[in-house]
């Protein structure tokens, strides 16, 4: 959201839920995520007085850093924030500690336990611990096992573990990983993070649906003709080629972020807003979701890969020429697909999902297109009346927009579409917290509502299994179409909708 003047009366009011005393243990503390997202999010919570004085962060990685080195490196990485809030940083940094830990080395994990006991005494953190696994996915299972073996997960009320994405790379590996972590900790201790769920606007899908009476009665197959979910990026693969080459857009974006948006858009209303009720409904709707053609999945999915593009003054390198990418790579940087949800609410409504890199705009949105009026009484300025659309803008320009027909001014009775818009900036004017601020706070509060449960993760992987198997076994059936960078993907993607008489919304 855009920068706006702060509401002076709003300062200090974000203290609705109090995080209990505890130590947040970050594994992979020497990695990017720690200094780019996690520690800044914690510092933000500290400045909002949402962290208690009895709080500590213990960074863990293999590097032999000292507490002081860890503090210095974090301060360097956050230089502008530190300079702006020098006193607060000094107070916050007093609670930063570092312990060299190799999760594969049991004695090292035992030492970690001793260090944590020391921190409990020093900072009165009451034995409450949140372990954040910001490590290679290869170490999720062994990491959990090491922590459990050292007794660090034995008290479900005082310890929990946060696991970054990707959680598995297909249905089988996700099942196996779930099995391993569930032998180490109870499900209510396991927090599988999807940072999209930390976004204010993603959570707003729930509030719009379930806090208003006007939407829910029409939120079904009787009124909605199709749904599009888009997550478009303008950036390329950047420095993530190593990971992205083995992942691709389907695993990197669709299985988690887009699927979560799909679940929130389509789930039934939970009986109450508690973690299990919420996650039950999400899991149920994902279990009812199917590719539009499971027998011939190549007919309901399009893959693409960006080629070179841009202008003569600002040329853009194609994916295969990006550093670290195989020059003959068949990894998709774009994917579009059609799904159905086989339940009473959504039977027969097509859901179109797309995501890609190097597209013309950075945006995420959910577009619900309503059925046409049964009789056209009026001439329409555009030839035919435009179907009503509700657009939930996830980012940027966060908000919602409703398109409907009105009488065009003049002597005739012609209709034309107009927009009615709600904007977070106009209504609230405050930048939302970064997703990690909300999600870290929730994990430390022990609130898993915005984290994905094992059955949700498995249902999401199972949904895309026919595609993943096809890519693995017969990639030629699901070719990777090239598209020019800064265009809206390959033409085949447009054809996917054209076959249904539809077109992607051009945002």
């Amino acid at each position, binding site marked *: 959201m855009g920068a706006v003047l702060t509401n002076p009366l709003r*300062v200090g009011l974000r203290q609705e839920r109090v995080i209990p*005393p505890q130590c947040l243990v970050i594994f992979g503390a020497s990695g990017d995520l720690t200094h780019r997202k996690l520690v800044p999010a914690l510092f933000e919570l500290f400045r909002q007085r949402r962290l208690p004085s009895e709080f500590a962060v213990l960074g863990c990685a293999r590097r032999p850093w000292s507490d002081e080195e860890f503090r210095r490196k974090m301060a360097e990485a956050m230089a502008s924030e530190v300079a702006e809030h020098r006193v607060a940083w000094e107070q916050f940094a007093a609670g930063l500690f570092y312990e060299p830990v190799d999760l594969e080395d049991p004695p090292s994990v035992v030492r970690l336990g001793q260090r944590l006991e020391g921190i409990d*005494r020093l900072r009165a953190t*009451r034995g409450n611990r949140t372990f954040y696994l910001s490590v290679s996915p290869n170490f999720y299972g062994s990491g959990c096992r090491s922590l459990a073996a050292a007794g660090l997960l034995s008290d479900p009320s005082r310890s929990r573990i946060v696991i970054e994405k990707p959680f598995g790379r297909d249905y089988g590996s996700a099942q196996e990983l779930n099995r391993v972590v569930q032998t180490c900790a109870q499900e209510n201790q396991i927090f599988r993070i999807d940072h999209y769920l930390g976004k204010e606007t993603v959570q707003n899908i729930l509030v719009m649906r379930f806090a208003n009476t006007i939407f829910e009665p029409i939120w079904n197959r009787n009124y909605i003709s199709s749904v599009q979910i888009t997550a478009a990026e303008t950036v390329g693969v950047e420095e993530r080629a190593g990971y992205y080459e083995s992942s691709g857009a389907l695993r990197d974006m669709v299985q988690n972020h887009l699927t979560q948006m799909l679940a929130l858009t389509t789930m039934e209303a939970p009986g109450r807003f508690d973690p299990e009720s919420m996650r039950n409904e999400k899991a149920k709707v994902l279990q009812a979701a199917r590719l539009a053609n499971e027998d011939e999945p190549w007919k309901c999915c399009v893959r693409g890969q960006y080629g070179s593009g841009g202008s003569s003054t600002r040329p853009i390198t194609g994916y295969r020429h990006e550093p670290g990418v195989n020059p003959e790579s068949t990894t998709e940087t774009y994917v579009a697909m059609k799904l159905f949800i086989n339940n009473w609410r959504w039977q027969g409504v097509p859901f179109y999902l797309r995501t890609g890199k190097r597209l013309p705009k950075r945006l995420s949105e959910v577009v619900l297109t309503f059925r046409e009026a049964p009789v056209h009484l009026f001439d329409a300025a555009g030839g035919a009346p435009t179907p009503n659309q509700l657009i939930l803008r996830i980012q940027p320009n966060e908000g919602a927009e409703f398109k409907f027909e009105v009488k065009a001014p003049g002597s005739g009775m012609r209709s034309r579409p107009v927009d009615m818009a709600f904007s977070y900036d106009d209504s609230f*004017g405050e930048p939302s917290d970064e997703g990690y601020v909300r999600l870290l706070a929730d994990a430390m509060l022990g609130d898993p509502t915005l984290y994905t449960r094992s059955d949700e993760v498995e249902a999401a992987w199972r949904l895309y299994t026919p595609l993943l198997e096809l890519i693995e076994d017969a990639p030629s059936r699901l070719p990777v179409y090239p598209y020019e960078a800064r265009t809206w993907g390959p033409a085949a993607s447009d054809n996917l909708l054209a076959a249904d008489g539809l077109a992607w919304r051009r945002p």
Partner: protein
Amino acid sequence: MSTQLTLQAPLALPPDQVPGYLERLWDQSLGSSPGAATFTLVVWEGSWLEQQLVRCGRLDGPITGFLNEKVLEAARAAAASCGLPLSTAPMDPKLAWAIGQLGGNHHAEDQRGQFVEGAISAHMPRRLITLAPTLDGSQPLETLVAAYCPLPEEGAGSSACGDVVVLRGSTGALHQNLDLVQPLIAPDLPCWVWWNSSLDEAPEVMAALATGARRLVVDSSLGDPRRCLNLLVERITAGQPINDLNWLRLRSWRESLAMVFDPPSRRDALNHVVQLDIDVEGSNPVKGLLLAAWLADRLGWQLISTYAVDGDGVGDGIGAEFERSDGETVRFRQMPVPVGVPKTHPGAILGLRLICQSSQGSPLCVILCSESGGCMRLESGGMASMELAEEVVPLPNESEEMEVARLLSGGHDSTNPLLAAAAPLAAKLLP
């Protein structure tokens, strides 16, 4: 969460045997308890209202220290028979004093400190020390100790978590034995001191208990307004972490006012405030002054003058003039308003009106009304030409114990900067 009983029957011990007993208890039973490294909570549990109501036969015992509905009902009924105005809040110390003038010599079991509110015990204080002063000025010191634990969740264990210590006796006896309390407070753990009574009483006991970095919890609605605000200022100035329940109860008013100015299109109006009116219940002005002071601080107003305003028989109001950063004047007026059914604490806010007048555009009038009271007085007169933003402020329905539990669950070793800025200004606003 329900109120939790101690795990074992409280054991009465001679005062000098208490430290030794507790040491043995920790050595033998509690050494590995999850409460071992949490915090100490010291409570000054006056409960004068409850004690007086029991003494004059208007309330059955036992005396627990909890402000439940029965106590409030009995207090409201007593206010009328004591000849106090209907606006007298049940927790107004004047009411307890007035009931004290009624006859009666009933007795009930005194269980103060032996109950642990579930929300508090869930945080497993290592030690909960209750000082329970009695009406009988000659009562010698009694000391009770017990282990306690929250009632176990289904399937969980039932081991003890911490201990409770009750010191009961006359205020004088408690004062003389404060030396007993100090060694019971673990020096290496946070210590909270909850002064759950009027701030006017036993200053020497408070001075002894709330020393140094101990986190003091008070309620500035209880006691003489001048003394309450001065105490806040003194403690804040001295660097003591202080938490004021009266300030915390302002949360929904602050939130509602902030909400009005969330849309950026309204922000500029905050630079053009010309008038602030606050209506409060009864004669205690502290809560209203804290709200006004918070607003003045956030908007950068300088206090120019303050004066008493004739309250038309209800009690004096308070008027003041502030200067905005652009040199323009803001007029402030806080008036006491009589009510039929007062809220629990003295000086609850009934309504707020803020008028913003810029040279361009029509003036904006913001009115916030208490959900239980309405604010017809603030809605009257001359607003037809103004843009009106009117909100109803929801009232929190939480007990003192829940508020304290919230503090204990994630406490700070410093005073909230907003309170630290508002309290001195509120003190200056008192004429």
